[in-house]
């Protein structure tokens, strides 16, 4: 058994960590947080230069062709650095949808641009409140055009193209849903930025008015493709969440060692130690669930749906737990704009919702466990 990343993969993690420590310090994240830019363009180009954007994209489509374990390693570092770039929407959602369902021509058109940092992609799924569900999709497709409104769309205001879930039937079945590829710069789509809890990751409303669209995958397969894309993205985003959890734990630990109160470091008080120990526990359980997800993702195992849901739930809980208790350990300073704690707290609570909420994934996990049990 080797239930761990290889030495080469760990080396890649170290490289990514070093690169991000230099190019993405908290100061850079704050530029985006303060609204001075919609995302960190220099960092995005730097990531492309390092080969990180196309790490799981085959060489035939301009990528590094390394694989998904390597992408998991990079994802963890993106989360640790709280990177203010459209990595998850472009790489986990748009690229994965193309890899799963795109025609050769579609892959040829977009994947090299993703790998080189020229194109930002996203997935336009939600239409207001609620969780992923075929019934919630009202946006209409007919005659190669789309009409309707999607929101919130992650990074929708800066994206060059979107994978869009649309209604193509009225039977009431999952097969009413199909996926489309839309060039957002080609006209017919209006993008409006929306204010959100974490300004370092943009959210938008996209209004489609007779927007030209080409089918992605077969008509009626949309929901089944989407489910697979969401599962794959869930594992990858879970690694970001674990990276964020670890960083929040480190910040809390370091502060507890430095800050003196009542004549001793606050980290010597059992109450504070136990908060930090519990953060370690949740981050560790999440990491282990993520490793299983990474194994399932990289081998395309039949366990992937269950593993993805478990990784997603565990990592969401861990990041929320660690980021809120990091603030608690920091006391009043943790609640200031000046300290970085709130950036992780914001990120934890937005990533918790971007692929469907915790309750959605809880539901998915139990469904999948029941199916396995029945089989």
């Amino acid at each position: 058994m080797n239930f761990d990343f290889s030495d080469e993969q760990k080396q890649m993690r170290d490289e990514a960590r070093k690169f991000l420590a230099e190019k993405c310090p908290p100061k850079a994240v704050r530029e985006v947080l303060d609204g001075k830019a919609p995302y960190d363009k220099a960092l995005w180009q730097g990531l492309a230069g390092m080969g990180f954007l196309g790490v799981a994209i085959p060489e035939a489509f301009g990528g590094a062709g390394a694989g998904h374990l390597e992408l998991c390693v990079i994802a963890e570092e993106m989360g640790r650095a709280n990177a203010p770039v459209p990595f998850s929407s472009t790489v986990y959602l748009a690229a994965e949808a193309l890899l799963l369902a795109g025609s050769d021509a579609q892959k040829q058109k977009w994947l090299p641009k993703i790998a080189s940092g020229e194109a930002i992609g996203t997935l336009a799924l939600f239409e207001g409140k609620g969780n992923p569900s075929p019934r919630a999709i009202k946006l209409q497709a007919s005659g190669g055009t789309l009409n309707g409104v999607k929101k919130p769309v992650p990074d929708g205001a800066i994206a060059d193209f979107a994978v869009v879930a649309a209604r193509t039937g009225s039977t009431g079945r999952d097969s009413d849903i199909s996926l489309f590829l839309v060039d957002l710069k080609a006209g017919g789509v209006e993008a409006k930025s929306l204010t959100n809890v974490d300004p370092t990751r943009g959210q938008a409303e996209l209004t489609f008015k007779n927007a030209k669209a080409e089918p992605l995958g077969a008509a009626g397969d949309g929901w089944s493709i989407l489910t697979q894309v969401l599962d794959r993205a869930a594992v990858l985003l879970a690694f970001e969440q674990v990276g964020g959890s670890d960083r929040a734990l480190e910040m809390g630990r370091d502060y507890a060692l430095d800050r003196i109160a009542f004549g001793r470091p606050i980290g010597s008080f059992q109450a504070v130690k136990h908060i930090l120990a519990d953060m370690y526990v949740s981050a560790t359980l999440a990491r282990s669930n993520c490793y299983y997800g990474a194994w399932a993702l990289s081998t395309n195992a039949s366990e992937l749906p269950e593993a993805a849901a478990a990784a997603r739930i565990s990592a969401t809980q861990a990041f929320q737990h660690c980021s809120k208790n990091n603030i608690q350990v920091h006391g009043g300073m943790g609640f200031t704009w000046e300290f970085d704690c709130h950036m992780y707290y914001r990120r934890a609570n937005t990533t918790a919702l971007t692929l469907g909420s915790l309750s959605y994934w809880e539901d998915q996990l139990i469904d999948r466990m029941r199916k396995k049990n029945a089989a």
Partner: protein
Amino acid sequence: MNFDDTPQEAAFRAEAKAWISANAPKQYEEELRKSSLGRTVLKGANILEVAKAWQKKKADAGWACLHWPKEYGGRGSSPIERVIWQQEEGPFGKLSGMFIIGHGMCGPTMMAFAGEEQKRKYLPPLASGEKVWCQLFSEPAGGSDVAGLRTRAEKKGDDWIINGQKIWTSGAHYSDYGILLTRTDPNVAKHKGLTMFFLDMKSPGVEVQPIKQASGQSDFNEVYFTDVKIPDSQRLGAVNDGWNVSLTTLMNERMSIGAGVSTGFPELFDFCNSLMLEDGPAIEDRSVRSRLANYAVKASGLRYTSMRAISALSKGERPGPENSIGKLVAGSMVQEVAMYALDLQGAAGVLSGPEDAEVAGKFQAMLLRAPGTRVEGGTDEIMRNIIAERVLGLPGDIRVDKDVPFNKIPTKGRA
């Protein structure tokens, strides 16, 4: 990243599997599989005899105490082979319950501190289960504070005379030998005046009284010592160096990873899968699903954490303090799971008789046993301290009695 054995590991697994399949007491397999949380009962059989017979069979074929050297009754296996054996032994491994303390802690301590002749005399019958050992550390005054113990050992000629009392001693009522931590100098700081011995539990002056636990079972005992004589040749380590000797014992506890900790989740999932509530199947209920999912990811998180530890073992790394997480998480989870399973049974959740209670009262038994799980081998709070101090590097607790002579340490509260 993979779950595959190396060719060597695969060969070992195949050999173990074949031997277990040909030799295990299969008539008890189902009962053992169903038993949970230290409540192993075999109908119409004396479990001690069944366990001893299985252990002897393993020893005769060279499958006992795998990681021990061959000359002391073991096999000289690597830690990863020990884990593979545990995986293959499956429910039959539960029969080793009464040997855990002897094999996991007493044996390694003897190996490190007893004389060569003693090792060859005492270790093989311990490995083969013919002799059972216990560990006499805890006392009424010192639970987590092991070094606070008061049992005295006084030198008289070539012997030591022991007086005092131990408590929470697992299996003392059927043990043949024990390792014993005593105080030999009360005039120095508490860690500095301790000495370790091993003794025959049938020695005159040793009295064992089983403790009836909250669960109604009696796995633990109080042990009283009245002028018990131990020859100096049965001392382990130097006089007043007993604390260091006991650390060796306790560190060996950590090596027992991989056996898998019980969380109660598989039992709860099966229960919810079959339970009908007023509004339909429990598993269709929104709140039930949410609770189940939360327990599911804790249970799987623990499972994969232990696989990560096994991978590290397989690469030759030693298990570290991070493995305290298993007991910490599983301990309180079992308790929560039991409470939730009773809650789902509504008013009838109070019933615990095997005829009247759901799933033969399994969760009621779990509920009553769970408080012990959270305490034995270190409380939740001690486990959190271990993680905070040894994994995260936070300062140790301030110990006001550290440099005070033992006989000057206050013994009453509300000072």
